Protein backbone atom coordinates (compact mmCIF):
# COMPACT_ATOMS: atom_id res chain seq x y z
CA UNK A 1 0.00 0.00 0.00
CA UNK A 2 1.32 3.39 -0.93
CA UNK A 3 1.49 6.32 1.39
CA UNK A 4 0.27 9.10 -0.86
CA UNK A 5 -0.92 9.57 -4.40
CA UNK A 6 -1.42 12.72 -6.41
CA UNK A 7 -4.16 12.98 -9.06
CA UNK A 8 -3.81 15.67 -11.67
CA UNK A 9 -6.91 16.06 -13.86
CA UNK A 10 -8.86 19.18 -14.79
CA UNK A 11 -12.17 17.30 -14.71
CA UNK A 12 -13.54 16.83 -11.17
CA UNK A 13 -15.66 13.90 -12.29
CA UNK A 14 -12.57 12.02 -13.49
CA UNK A 15 -10.86 12.75 -10.21
CA UNK A 16 -13.92 11.47 -8.39
CA UNK A 17 -13.97 8.22 -10.35
CA UNK A 18 -10.26 7.66 -9.93
CA UNK A 19 -10.41 8.39 -6.23
CA UNK A 20 -13.33 5.99 -5.82
CA UNK A 21 -11.46 3.17 -7.55
CA UNK A 22 -8.28 3.82 -5.60
CA UNK A 23 -10.04 3.94 -2.28
CA UNK A 24 -11.99 0.82 -3.10
CA UNK A 25 -8.78 -1.07 -3.75
CA UNK A 26 -7.13 0.31 -0.66
CA UNK A 27 -4.40 1.37 -2.97
CA UNK A 28 -2.99 4.05 -0.69
CA UNK A 29 -3.40 5.97 2.52
CA UNK A 30 -3.71 9.44 1.20
CA UNK A 31 -5.11 10.75 -2.08
CA UNK A 32 -4.86 14.32 -3.20
CA UNK A 33 -6.50 15.61 -6.35
CA UNK A 34 -5.61 18.86 -8.12
CA UNK A 35 -7.20 20.30 -11.21
CA UNK A 36 -4.29 21.78 -13.08
CA UNK A 37 -0.67 21.08 -13.98
CA UNK A 38 0.26 24.31 -12.23
CA UNK A 39 -1.39 23.25 -8.99
CA UNK A 40 0.33 19.89 -9.24
CA UNK A 41 3.77 21.46 -9.65
CA UNK A 42 3.13 23.87 -6.80
CA UNK A 43 2.09 21.01 -4.54
CA UNK A 44 5.32 19.14 -5.29
CA UNK A 45 7.51 22.17 -4.87
CA UNK A 46 6.14 23.12 -1.45
CA UNK A 47 6.82 19.70 0.09
CA UNK A 48 10.03 20.39 1.99
CA UNK A 49 10.23 16.92 3.40
CA UNK A 50 10.82 14.38 0.60
CA UNK A 51 9.05 11.76 2.65
CA UNK A 52 5.84 13.67 2.12
CA UNK A 53 6.10 13.55 -1.67
CA UNK A 54 3.54 11.34 -3.47
CA UNK A 55 4.95 8.02 -4.68
CA UNK A 56 2.65 7.97 -7.67
CA UNK A 57 1.21 10.74 -9.77
CA UNK A 58 -1.73 9.96 -12.04
CA UNK A 59 -1.48 12.51 -14.82
CA UNK A 60 -4.15 13.41 -17.39
CA UNK A 61 -3.10 14.58 -20.86
CA UNK A 62 -5.92 16.88 -21.89
CA UNK A 63 -5.90 19.88 -19.64
CA UNK A 64 -6.37 23.54 -20.51
CA UNK A 65 -3.41 25.94 -20.42
CA UNK A 66 -0.70 23.43 -19.52
CA UNK A 67 -1.43 19.88 -20.66
CA UNK A 68 0.05 16.59 -19.45
CA UNK A 69 3.13 16.90 -21.65
CA UNK A 70 3.63 20.46 -20.49
CA UNK A 71 3.60 19.16 -16.91
CA UNK A 72 6.23 16.54 -17.81
CA UNK A 73 8.50 19.24 -19.19
CA UNK A 74 8.28 21.26 -16.01
CA UNK A 75 8.53 18.14 -13.85
CA UNK A 76 11.87 17.27 -15.41
CA UNK A 77 13.20 20.64 -14.26
CA UNK A 78 12.29 19.98 -10.64
CA UNK A 79 14.89 18.84 -8.17
CA UNK A 80 16.37 15.38 -8.36
CA UNK A 81 14.79 14.59 -5.03
CA UNK A 82 11.31 15.12 -6.34
CA UNK A 83 11.52 13.48 -9.69
CA UNK A 84 13.26 10.40 -8.36
CA UNK A 85 10.64 9.90 -5.68
CA UNK A 86 7.41 10.39 -7.65
CA UNK A 87 6.58 8.00 -10.49
CA UNK A 88 4.18 9.22 -13.12
CA UNK A 89 1.37 7.20 -14.62
CA UNK A 90 -0.26 8.79 -17.65
CA UNK A 91 -3.99 8.34 -17.46
CA UNK A 92 -5.80 9.53 -20.55
CA UNK A 93 -8.90 9.07 -22.64
CA UNK A 94 -6.83 9.63 -25.79
CA UNK A 95 -6.82 6.89 -28.45
CA UNK A 96 -4.11 8.58 -30.44
CA UNK A 97 -1.13 6.22 -30.65
CA UNK A 98 1.15 9.18 -30.95
CA UNK A 99 0.10 10.33 -27.49
CA UNK A 100 0.86 6.86 -26.16
CA UNK A 101 4.27 6.80 -27.82
CA UNK A 102 5.11 10.24 -26.62
CA UNK A 103 4.07 9.43 -23.06
CA UNK A 104 6.02 6.18 -22.97
CA UNK A 105 9.07 7.95 -24.31
CA UNK A 106 9.22 10.23 -21.30
CA UNK A 107 11.77 8.99 -18.77
CA UNK A 108 9.52 9.72 -15.80
CA UNK A 109 6.39 7.98 -17.13
CA UNK A 110 6.30 4.37 -15.99
CA UNK A 111 2.97 3.40 -17.53
CA UNK A 112 0.18 4.59 -19.77
CA UNK A 113 -3.32 3.61 -18.75
CA UNK A 114 -6.39 4.32 -20.82
CA UNK A 115 -9.31 5.79 -18.95
CA UNK A 116 -11.41 4.73 -17.21
CA UNK A 117 -9.21 3.58 -14.36
CA UNK A 118 -10.41 0.14 -13.33
CA UNK A 119 -9.57 -2.32 -10.64
CA UNK A 120 -7.98 -4.52 -13.30
CA UNK A 121 -5.55 -1.86 -14.43
CA UNK A 122 -4.75 -1.10 -10.81
CA UNK A 123 -4.00 -4.74 -10.06
CA UNK A 124 -1.53 -4.70 -12.93
CA UNK A 125 0.23 -1.83 -11.21
CA UNK A 126 0.52 -3.60 -7.94
CA UNK A 127 1.96 -6.66 -9.62
CA UNK A 128 4.75 -4.73 -11.20
CA UNK A 129 6.36 -4.04 -7.89
CA UNK A 130 9.33 -2.23 -9.28
CA UNK A 131 7.19 0.93 -9.30
Amino acid at each position, binding site marked *: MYKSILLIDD*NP*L*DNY*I*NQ*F*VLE*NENFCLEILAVQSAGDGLDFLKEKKDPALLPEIIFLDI*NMPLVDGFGFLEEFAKLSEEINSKSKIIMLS*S*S*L*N*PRDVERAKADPYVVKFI*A*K*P*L*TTESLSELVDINNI
Partner: protein
Amino acid sequence: MPLTSKKIKTLIVEDNLGDFILIEDYLKQEFVEVSIEHAKSFKAAKEITADQQFDVILLDLTLPDASGEELILEVQLHAGDAAIIVLTGYSNKNFGVKTLSLGVSDYLLKDELVPSQLYKSIVYSIERKRVNDELKSSEEKYRTLFHSSPIPMWVFNPEDYSFLDVNQAACKHYGYSREEFLSMTIKKIRPTHDLEKLEKTTLRNKGTNNYFEGMFDHYKKNGELIHVNIQSNTISFAGNAARLVVATDLTEKIKTQREREQLIAELLQHNKDLRQFSYITSHNIRGPIAQLLGLTNLLEHYKVEDPTLSKILTGIQQVAGNFDETIKDLSGILNIKDRPSILREEINLDILCNKVHMQCKSSLDESNAAVHIDFSKAAHINFNIEYLESILLNLFTNAIKYRSKTTPLQIYINTEAVENKIILKFRDNGMGVDVDYHKEKLFGLYQRFHENIEGKGIGLFLIKTQMEALRGSVHMESKVNAGTLFTLQFERCAG
Protein backbone atom coordinates in the same frame (compact mmCIF):
# COMPACT_ATOMS: atom_id res chain seq x y z
CA MET B 1 36.35 22.69 -109.66
CA PRO B 2 34.51 19.81 -111.13
CA LEU B 3 32.94 22.02 -113.80
CA THR B 4 35.77 21.84 -116.26
CA SER B 5 35.65 18.09 -116.28
CA LYS B 6 31.95 18.14 -117.02
CA LYS B 7 30.72 18.97 -120.47
CA ILE B 8 29.54 22.59 -120.59
CA LYS B 9 26.49 23.22 -122.72
CA THR B 10 26.55 26.69 -124.18
CA LEU B 11 24.23 28.72 -126.35
CA ILE B 12 25.58 31.70 -128.19
CA VAL B 13 22.91 34.16 -129.22
CA GLU B 14 24.72 36.34 -131.71
CA ASP B 15 23.73 37.58 -135.16
CA ASN B 16 27.19 38.76 -136.18
CA LEU B 17 28.92 35.77 -137.67
CA GLY B 18 32.39 37.14 -137.13
CA ASP B 19 31.77 37.62 -133.44
CA PHE B 20 30.29 34.18 -133.21
CA ILE B 21 33.29 32.46 -134.76
CA LEU B 22 35.65 34.29 -132.47
CA ILE B 23 33.74 33.26 -129.39
CA GLU B 24 33.41 29.72 -130.64
CA ASP B 25 37.16 29.51 -131.09
CA TYR B 26 37.84 30.86 -127.62
CA LEU B 27 35.47 28.35 -126.10
CA LYS B 28 37.03 25.43 -127.87
CA GLN B 29 40.40 26.67 -126.75
CA GLU B 30 39.60 26.99 -123.06
CA PHE B 31 37.21 24.14 -122.40
CA VAL B 32 38.03 20.47 -122.70
CA GLU B 33 34.47 19.48 -123.38
CA VAL B 34 32.00 22.00 -124.62
CA SER B 35 28.92 21.90 -126.77
CA ILE B 36 28.03 25.04 -128.66
CA GLU B 37 24.66 25.98 -130.07
CA HIS B 38 24.11 29.04 -132.17
CA ALA B 39 21.03 31.23 -132.38
CA LYS B 40 21.05 34.19 -134.68
CA SER B 41 17.95 35.87 -133.34
CA PHE B 42 15.79 36.06 -130.29
CA LYS B 43 13.17 33.92 -132.00
CA ALA B 44 15.76 31.25 -132.73
CA ALA B 45 16.99 31.41 -129.16
CA LYS B 46 13.46 30.97 -127.91
CA GLU B 47 12.98 27.88 -130.05
CA ILE B 48 16.20 26.25 -129.08
CA THR B 49 15.81 26.83 -125.34
CA ALA B 50 12.39 25.25 -125.53
CA ASP B 51 14.02 21.94 -126.41
CA GLN B 52 17.32 22.09 -124.63
CA GLN B 53 18.71 23.02 -121.27
CA PHE B 54 21.97 25.00 -121.21
CA ASP B 55 24.55 25.71 -118.54
CA VAL B 56 25.30 29.17 -119.91
CA ILE B 57 23.85 31.52 -122.50
CA LEU B 58 26.10 34.09 -124.09
CA LEU B 59 23.78 36.86 -125.22
CA ASP B 60 24.50 39.68 -127.58
CA LEU B 61 22.51 42.72 -126.63
CA THR B 62 21.70 43.90 -130.13
CA LEU B 63 19.75 41.33 -132.08
CA PRO B 64 17.69 41.93 -135.15
CA ASP B 65 14.42 41.16 -133.41
CA ALA B 66 15.07 42.37 -129.88
CA SER B 67 17.56 44.28 -127.81
CA GLY B 68 18.37 45.89 -124.50
CA GLU B 69 16.54 45.42 -121.27
CA GLU B 70 13.48 43.92 -122.87
CA LEU B 71 15.61 41.28 -124.54
CA ILE B 72 17.26 40.33 -121.28
CA LEU B 73 13.96 39.99 -119.47
CA GLU B 74 12.53 37.84 -122.24
CA VAL B 75 15.58 35.59 -122.36
CA GLN B 76 15.48 35.12 -118.62
CA LEU B 77 11.99 33.74 -118.96
CA HIS B 78 13.21 31.02 -121.27
CA ALA B 79 16.67 30.45 -119.86
CA GLY B 80 15.69 27.89 -117.24
CA ASP B 81 18.67 27.24 -114.99
CA ALA B 82 21.21 28.68 -117.38
CA ALA B 83 23.48 31.51 -116.32
CA ILE B 84 23.23 34.45 -118.67
CA ILE B 85 26.35 36.33 -119.72
CA VAL B 86 25.71 39.47 -121.69
CA LEU B 87 28.08 40.57 -124.46
CA THR B 88 28.08 44.27 -125.16
CA GLY B 89 29.89 46.60 -127.40
CA TYR B 90 32.05 49.39 -126.06
CA SER B 91 29.36 51.92 -126.64
CA ASN B 92 27.03 49.97 -124.41
CA LYS B 93 29.38 49.75 -121.45
CA ASN B 94 27.20 51.61 -118.96
CA PHE B 95 24.19 49.61 -119.80
CA GLY B 96 26.26 46.50 -119.29
CA VAL B 97 26.65 47.37 -115.67
CA LYS B 98 22.91 47.88 -115.37
CA THR B 99 22.26 44.38 -116.67
CA LEU B 100 23.78 42.93 -113.52
CA SER B 101 20.93 44.33 -111.48
CA LEU B 102 18.52 42.55 -113.78
CA GLY B 103 19.88 39.24 -112.67
CA VAL B 104 22.40 38.68 -115.39
CA SER B 105 25.48 36.82 -114.19
CA ASP B 106 28.14 38.86 -115.94
CA TYR B 107 28.70 41.29 -118.78
CA LEU B 108 31.66 41.18 -121.14
CA LEU B 109 32.93 43.80 -123.56
CA LYS B 110 33.25 42.18 -126.92
CA ASP B 111 36.05 44.51 -127.93
CA GLU B 112 38.19 43.47 -125.01
CA LEU B 113 37.34 39.80 -124.98
CA VAL B 114 40.19 37.38 -124.28
CA PRO B 115 39.89 33.63 -123.93
CA SER B 116 40.96 33.42 -120.28
CA GLN B 117 38.49 36.10 -119.31
CA LEU B 118 35.70 34.30 -121.14
CA TYR B 119 36.61 31.07 -119.44
CA LYS B 120 36.70 32.59 -115.99
CA SER B 121 33.46 34.42 -116.51
CA ILE B 122 31.61 31.31 -117.68
CA VAL B 123 32.90 29.11 -114.90
CA TYR B 124 32.20 31.64 -112.18
CA SER B 125 28.79 32.53 -113.55
CA ILE B 126 27.65 28.94 -113.59
CA GLU B 127 28.80 28.38 -110.03
CA ARG B 128 27.36 31.64 -108.80
CA LYS B 129 24.02 30.87 -110.38
CA ARG B 130 23.98 27.52 -108.69
CA VAL B 131 24.74 29.02 -105.31
CA ASN B 132 22.17 31.78 -105.77
CA ASP B 133 19.52 29.29 -106.77
CA GLU B 134 20.22 27.21 -103.71
CA LEU B 135 20.06 30.27 -101.53
CA LYS B 136 16.78 31.31 -103.11
CA SER B 137 15.25 27.89 -102.61
CA SER B 138 16.42 27.80 -99.05
CA GLU B 139 14.96 31.23 -98.50
CA GLU B 140 11.76 29.98 -100.08
CA LYS B 141 11.63 27.14 -97.64
CA TYR B 142 12.03 29.43 -94.71
CA ARG B 143 9.47 31.84 -96.03
CA THR B 144 7.04 28.98 -96.19
CA LEU B 145 7.99 27.82 -92.70
CA PHE B 146 7.50 31.28 -91.32
CA HIS B 147 4.21 31.93 -93.04
CA SER B 148 2.60 28.59 -92.50
CA SER B 149 3.66 28.18 -88.86
CA PRO B 150 0.60 27.70 -86.67
CA ILE B 151 2.30 29.69 -83.91
CA PRO B 152 2.37 33.47 -84.20
CA MET B 153 5.78 34.66 -85.39
CA TRP B 154 7.20 37.98 -86.39
CA VAL B 155 10.40 39.79 -87.18
CA PHE B 156 11.08 43.20 -85.75
CA ASN B 157 13.72 45.85 -86.01
CA PRO B 158 15.55 46.21 -82.70
CA GLU B 159 16.54 49.78 -83.54
CA ASP B 160 13.09 51.26 -83.87
CA TYR B 161 10.92 48.35 -82.69
CA SER B 162 8.97 48.30 -85.94
CA PHE B 163 7.44 45.07 -87.25
CA LEU B 164 9.34 43.94 -90.34
CA ASP B 165 7.38 40.82 -91.11
CA VAL B 166 4.50 38.97 -89.57
CA ASN B 167 2.96 35.56 -90.24
CA GLN B 168 -0.66 34.61 -90.72
CA ALA B 169 -0.97 33.01 -87.32
CA ALA B 170 0.06 36.27 -85.67
CA CYS B 171 -2.55 38.21 -87.66
CA LYS B 172 -5.21 35.69 -86.78
CA HIS B 173 -4.33 35.59 -83.12
CA TYR B 174 -3.79 39.26 -82.43
CA GLY B 175 -6.50 40.54 -84.72
CA TYR B 176 -4.35 42.99 -86.67
CA SER B 177 -4.04 42.71 -90.42
CA ARG B 178 -0.63 42.35 -91.97
CA GLU B 179 -0.73 45.95 -93.13
CA GLU B 180 -1.62 47.14 -89.68
CA PHE B 181 1.22 45.15 -88.14
CA LEU B 182 3.78 46.46 -90.59
CA SER B 183 2.79 49.99 -89.72
CA MET B 184 3.13 49.41 -85.95
CA THR B 185 5.91 48.99 -83.52
CA ILE B 186 6.00 46.11 -81.06
CA LYS B 187 5.38 48.61 -78.29
CA LYS B 188 1.77 48.82 -79.40
CA ILE B 189 1.02 45.29 -78.21
CA ARG B 190 2.65 45.76 -74.85
CA PRO B 191 1.10 47.27 -71.73
CA THR B 192 2.59 50.69 -71.03
CA HIS B 193 4.08 49.63 -67.71
CA ASP B 194 6.15 47.00 -69.54
CA LEU B 195 7.77 49.37 -72.01
CA GLU B 196 10.80 50.03 -69.86
CA LYS B 197 11.41 46.30 -69.45
CA LEU B 198 11.01 45.89 -73.21
CA GLU B 199 13.61 48.50 -73.96
CA LYS B 200 16.07 47.02 -71.51
CA THR B 201 15.66 43.53 -72.93
CA THR B 202 15.93 44.62 -76.53
CA LEU B 203 19.05 46.59 -75.73
CA ARG B 204 20.59 43.59 -74.04
CA ASN B 205 19.83 41.29 -76.97
CA LYS B 206 20.98 43.70 -79.62
CA GLY B 207 23.98 42.83 -81.65
CA THR B 208 24.37 39.43 -80.14
CA ASN B 209 23.17 36.07 -81.29
CA ASN B 210 21.33 35.74 -78.06
CA TYR B 211 18.49 33.31 -77.72
CA PHE B 212 16.01 34.93 -75.41
CA GLU B 213 12.96 33.53 -73.68
CA GLY B 214 10.51 35.09 -71.30
CA MET B 215 6.87 35.53 -70.32
CA PHE B 216 5.19 38.78 -71.26
CA ASP B 217 1.77 40.37 -71.25
CA HIS B 218 0.41 41.35 -74.64
CA TYR B 219 -2.74 43.06 -75.82
CA LYS B 220 -4.76 41.81 -78.75
CA LYS B 221 -6.39 44.36 -81.05
CA ASN B 222 -9.67 43.92 -79.17
CA GLY B 223 -8.02 44.86 -75.89
CA GLU B 224 -7.90 41.32 -74.53
CA LEU B 225 -4.89 40.70 -72.28
CA ILE B 226 -2.94 37.51 -72.89
CA HIS B 227 0.13 35.95 -71.28
CA VAL B 228 2.63 35.04 -73.93
CA ASN B 229 5.80 32.99 -73.93
CA ILE B 230 8.29 34.84 -76.14
CA GLN B 231 11.25 33.09 -77.72
CA SER B 232 13.47 35.19 -79.92
CA ASN B 233 16.67 34.98 -81.86
CA THR B 234 18.75 37.17 -84.10
CA ILE B 235 17.97 36.95 -87.79
CA SER B 236 19.26 38.74 -90.80
CA PHE B 237 16.44 40.51 -92.55
CA ALA B 238 17.11 42.30 -95.79
CA GLY B 239 20.74 42.50 -94.81
CA ASN B 240 20.15 44.01 -91.37
CA ALA B 241 20.22 42.49 -87.91
CA ALA B 242 16.67 41.91 -86.75
CA ARG B 243 14.95 39.77 -84.12
CA LEU B 244 12.81 36.75 -85.00
CA VAL B 245 10.10 36.13 -82.44
CA VAL B 246 7.88 33.13 -81.71
CA ALA B 247 4.94 34.05 -79.49
CA THR B 248 3.09 31.20 -77.78
CA ASP B 249 -0.08 32.19 -75.97
CA LEU B 250 -0.12 30.40 -72.63
CA THR B 251 -3.09 32.23 -71.12
CA GLU B 252 -5.36 29.17 -71.08
CA LYS B 253 -2.66 26.91 -69.69
CA ILE B 254 -1.81 29.40 -66.97
CA LYS B 255 -5.47 29.79 -66.08
CA THR B 256 -5.93 26.03 -65.83
CA GLN B 257 -2.78 25.75 -63.76
CA ARG B 258 -3.97 28.43 -61.36
CA GLU B 259 -7.36 26.79 -61.02
CA ARG B 260 -5.71 23.47 -60.29
CA GLU B 261 -3.47 25.05 -57.68
CA GLN B 262 -6.45 26.64 -56.08
CA LEU B 263 -8.30 23.35 -56.02
CA ILE B 264 -5.33 21.65 -54.41
CA ALA B 265 -5.12 24.37 -51.80
CA GLU B 266 -8.82 23.98 -51.07
CA LEU B 267 -8.51 20.23 -50.84
CA LEU B 268 -5.52 20.48 -48.54
CA GLN B 269 -7.41 22.86 -46.31
CA HIS B 270 -10.43 20.62 -46.38
CA ASN B 271 -8.24 17.67 -45.49
CA LYS B 272 -6.73 19.66 -42.66
CA ASP B 273 -10.21 20.51 -41.41
CA LEU B 274 -11.25 16.87 -41.52
CA ARG B 275 -8.15 15.80 -39.69
CA GLN B 276 -8.88 18.41 -37.09
CA PHE B 277 -12.39 17.03 -36.82
CA SER B 278 -11.13 13.51 -36.36
CA TYR B 279 -8.80 14.74 -33.66
CA ILE B 280 -11.73 16.31 -31.88
CA THR B 281 -13.62 13.06 -32.23
CA SER B 282 -10.88 11.06 -30.67
CA HIS B 283 -10.45 13.47 -27.79
CA ASN B 284 -13.59 15.34 -26.92
CA ILE B 285 -15.98 12.47 -27.49
CA ARG B 286 -13.83 9.83 -25.90
CA GLY B 287 -13.44 11.86 -22.72
CA PRO B 288 -17.10 11.72 -21.75
CA ILE B 289 -17.34 8.10 -22.88
CA ALA B 290 -14.48 7.14 -20.60
CA GLN B 291 -16.27 8.91 -17.79
CA LEU B 292 -19.50 7.12 -18.62
CA LEU B 293 -17.71 3.79 -18.55
CA GLY B 294 -15.94 4.76 -15.35
CA LEU B 295 -19.17 5.63 -13.64
CA THR B 296 -20.98 2.52 -14.79
CA ASN B 297 -18.03 0.47 -13.55
CA LEU B 298 -18.48 1.99 -10.12
CA LEU B 299 -22.00 0.57 -10.13
CA GLU B 300 -20.43 -2.87 -9.85
CA HIS B 301 -19.71 -2.12 -6.24
CA TYR B 302 -23.36 -1.51 -5.37
CA LYS B 303 -26.06 -4.06 -5.19
CA VAL B 304 -29.23 -2.96 -6.91
CA GLU B 305 -32.29 -4.67 -5.47
CA ASP B 306 -34.88 -3.33 -7.82
CA PRO B 307 -34.86 -5.56 -10.96
CA THR B 308 -36.11 -2.80 -13.23
CA LEU B 309 -33.48 -0.41 -12.01
CA SER B 310 -30.88 -3.15 -12.35
CA LYS B 311 -31.95 -3.77 -15.91
CA ILE B 312 -31.81 -0.10 -16.74
CA LEU B 313 -28.35 0.28 -15.25
CA THR B 314 -27.10 -2.80 -17.10
CA GLY B 315 -28.50 -1.31 -20.30
CA ILE B 316 -26.64 1.90 -19.68
CA GLN B 317 -23.44 -0.08 -19.14
CA GLN B 318 -23.87 -1.92 -22.43
CA VAL B 319 -24.59 1.24 -24.34
CA ALA B 320 -21.53 2.92 -22.90
CA GLY B 321 -19.51 -0.13 -23.86
CA ASN B 322 -20.80 -0.15 -27.45
CA PHE B 323 -20.22 3.54 -27.77
CA ASP B 324 -16.65 3.08 -26.65
CA GLU B 325 -16.08 0.20 -29.07
CA THR B 326 -17.32 2.24 -32.01
CA ILE B 327 -15.16 5.20 -31.15
CA LYS B 328 -12.17 2.88 -30.79
CA ASP B 329 -12.88 1.32 -34.22
CA LEU B 330 -13.17 4.66 -35.92
CA SER B 331 -10.08 5.96 -34.22
CA GLY B 332 -8.18 2.86 -35.29
CA ILE B 333 -9.24 3.35 -38.87
CA LEU B 334 -8.39 7.03 -38.87
CA ASN B 335 -5.00 6.19 -37.48
CA ILE B 336 -4.32 3.91 -40.41
CA LYS B 337 -5.27 6.55 -42.92
CA ASP B 338 -3.56 9.38 -41.17
CA ARG B 339 -0.06 7.94 -40.95
CA PRO B 340 2.24 10.00 -43.20
CA SER B 341 4.60 7.15 -43.84
CA ILE B 342 4.08 3.56 -42.96
CA LEU B 343 6.91 1.21 -42.17
CA ARG B 344 7.48 -1.59 -44.65
CA GLU B 345 9.71 -4.60 -44.34
CA GLU B 346 10.36 -7.96 -45.97
CA ILE B 347 8.00 -10.35 -44.23
CA ASN B 348 8.49 -14.09 -44.15
CA LEU B 349 5.03 -15.40 -44.95
CA ASP B 350 5.48 -18.85 -43.45
CA ILE B 351 6.46 -17.40 -40.12
CA LEU B 352 3.73 -14.77 -40.00
CA CYS B 353 1.00 -17.06 -41.25
CA ASN B 354 2.00 -19.63 -38.68
CA LYS B 355 1.78 -17.04 -35.94
CA VAL B 356 -1.76 -16.09 -36.95
CA HIS B 357 -2.66 -19.75 -37.38
CA MET B 358 -1.61 -20.38 -33.80
CA GLN B 359 -3.70 -17.44 -32.58
CA CYS B 360 -6.77 -19.04 -34.18
CA LYS B 361 -5.82 -22.59 -33.32
CA SER B 362 -8.53 -23.26 -30.78
CA SER B 363 -11.30 -21.95 -33.06
CA LEU B 364 -9.86 -23.85 -36.01
CA ASP B 365 -9.73 -27.10 -34.06
CA GLU B 366 -13.26 -26.57 -32.85
CA SER B 367 -14.49 -26.38 -36.41
CA ASN B 368 -12.39 -29.30 -37.62
CA ALA B 369 -10.71 -27.01 -40.04
CA ALA B 370 -7.89 -27.93 -42.39
CA VAL B 371 -5.48 -25.24 -43.53
CA HIS B 372 -3.43 -25.72 -46.72
CA ILE B 373 -0.58 -23.30 -47.16
CA ASP B 374 1.66 -22.93 -50.20
CA PHE B 375 4.07 -20.01 -50.33
CA SER B 376 6.56 -21.80 -52.57
CA LYS B 377 6.08 -19.39 -55.46
CA ALA B 378 6.52 -16.26 -53.37
CA ALA B 379 7.78 -16.62 -49.86
CA HIS B 380 8.18 -12.97 -48.94
CA ILE B 381 6.06 -9.86 -49.08
CA ASN B 382 7.24 -6.32 -48.60
CA PHE B 383 4.56 -4.75 -46.38
CA ASN B 384 3.81 -3.43 -42.93
CA ILE B 385 3.99 -6.39 -40.58
CA GLU B 386 1.28 -5.21 -38.17
CA TYR B 387 -1.15 -4.60 -41.01
CA LEU B 388 -0.41 -7.92 -42.65
CA GLU B 389 -0.88 -9.75 -39.39
CA SER B 390 -4.17 -7.92 -38.86
CA ILE B 391 -5.28 -8.74 -42.40
CA LEU B 392 -4.47 -12.44 -42.08
CA LEU B 393 -6.15 -12.56 -38.72
CA ASN B 394 -9.28 -10.98 -40.16
CA LEU B 395 -9.28 -13.44 -43.05
CA PHE B 396 -8.93 -16.41 -40.75
CA THR B 397 -11.56 -15.09 -38.36
CA ASN B 398 -14.00 -14.51 -41.19
CA ALA B 399 -13.40 -17.94 -42.63
CA ILE B 400 -14.07 -19.50 -39.25
CA LYS B 401 -17.11 -17.36 -38.51
CA TYR B 402 -18.77 -17.93 -41.84
CA ARG B 403 -17.89 -21.58 -42.30
CA SER B 404 -20.41 -23.99 -43.74
CA LYS B 405 -22.66 -25.75 -41.26
CA THR B 406 -22.49 -28.96 -43.18
CA THR B 407 -19.01 -29.20 -44.67
CA PRO B 408 -15.81 -29.09 -42.58
CA LEU B 409 -13.87 -25.88 -43.12
CA GLN B 410 -11.08 -25.98 -45.68
CA ILE B 411 -8.77 -23.02 -46.07
CA TYR B 412 -6.32 -22.65 -48.95
CA ILE B 413 -3.67 -19.96 -48.92
CA ASN B 414 -1.12 -19.51 -51.69
CA THR B 415 1.01 -16.87 -53.30
CA GLU B 416 2.45 -16.19 -56.71
CA ALA B 417 4.60 -13.53 -58.27
CA VAL B 418 3.13 -11.88 -61.37
CA GLU B 419 5.09 -9.11 -63.12
CA ASN B 420 5.57 -6.37 -60.53
CA LYS B 421 3.06 -7.71 -58.03
CA ILE B 422 2.78 -10.45 -55.45
CA ILE B 423 -0.66 -12.04 -55.38
CA LEU B 424 -1.96 -13.77 -52.28
CA LYS B 425 -5.08 -15.92 -52.56
CA PHE B 426 -7.12 -16.90 -49.52
CA ARG B 427 -9.90 -19.30 -50.25
CA ASP B 428 -12.43 -20.99 -48.02
CA ASN B 429 -15.35 -23.34 -48.66
CA GLY B 430 -17.74 -21.57 -46.32
CA MET B 431 -21.14 -19.94 -46.55
CA GLY B 432 -20.12 -17.35 -49.04
CA VAL B 433 -21.79 -14.06 -49.78
CA ASP B 434 -23.81 -12.84 -52.73
CA VAL B 435 -21.20 -10.38 -53.97
CA ASP B 436 -23.30 -9.09 -56.81
CA TYR B 437 -26.17 -8.24 -54.56
CA HIS B 438 -24.03 -6.47 -51.98
CA LYS B 439 -21.49 -4.98 -54.40
CA GLU B 440 -20.30 -1.59 -53.09
CA LYS B 441 -21.26 -2.34 -49.53
CA LEU B 442 -18.95 -5.34 -49.44
CA PHE B 443 -15.95 -3.48 -48.09
CA GLY B 444 -18.01 -0.80 -46.42
CA LEU B 445 -17.87 0.03 -42.76
CA TYR B 446 -20.25 -1.68 -40.36
CA GLN B 447 -21.74 -3.72 -43.19
CA ARG B 448 -22.78 -7.23 -42.33
CA PHE B 449 -24.14 -9.84 -44.66
CA HIS B 450 -25.20 -12.64 -42.38
CA GLU B 451 -27.83 -12.64 -39.71
CA ASN B 452 -27.32 -14.47 -36.50
CA ILE B 453 -23.59 -14.41 -36.67
CA GLU B 454 -21.63 -12.18 -34.37
CA GLY B 455 -19.55 -9.51 -35.94
CA LYS B 456 -19.25 -5.77 -36.10
CA GLY B 457 -18.79 -5.57 -39.84
CA ILE B 458 -15.46 -3.80 -39.88
CA GLY B 459 -13.15 -6.68 -40.78
CA LEU B 460 -13.36 -6.26 -44.56
CA PHE B 461 -13.22 -2.50 -44.26
CA LEU B 462 -10.03 -2.75 -42.23
CA ILE B 463 -8.47 -5.14 -44.75
CA LYS B 464 -9.27 -2.78 -47.59
CA THR B 465 -8.03 0.29 -45.72
CA GLN B 466 -4.80 -1.39 -44.73
CA MET B 467 -4.10 -2.77 -48.21
CA GLU B 468 -4.78 0.56 -49.87
CA ALA B 469 -2.67 2.47 -47.38
CA LEU B 470 0.34 0.72 -48.93
CA ARG B 471 -0.82 0.88 -52.54
CA GLY B 472 -2.17 -2.67 -52.59
CA SER B 473 -5.65 -3.90 -53.41
CA VAL B 474 -8.13 -6.55 -52.34
CA HIS B 475 -10.76 -8.30 -54.40
CA MET B 476 -13.45 -10.66 -53.23
CA GLU B 477 -15.22 -13.40 -55.16
CA SER B 478 -17.92 -15.38 -53.53
CA LYS B 479 -21.08 -17.37 -54.10
CA VAL B 480 -23.64 -18.38 -51.56
CA ASN B 481 -22.75 -21.84 -50.23
CA ALA B 482 -19.81 -22.06 -52.56
CA GLY B 483 -17.12 -20.39 -50.49
CA THR B 484 -15.13 -17.21 -50.85
CA LEU B 485 -11.89 -16.24 -52.55
CA PHE B 486 -9.94 -13.17 -51.50
CA THR B 487 -7.28 -11.96 -53.90
CA LEU B 488 -4.78 -9.55 -52.39
CA GLN B 489 -2.32 -7.70 -54.60
CA PHE B 490 0.87 -6.40 -53.07
CA GLU B 491 3.40 -4.09 -54.66
CA ARG B 492 6.58 -5.92 -55.30
CA CYS B 493 9.50 -3.86 -54.10
CA ALA B 494 12.91 -4.35 -55.54
CA GLY B 495 15.52 -5.59 -53.12
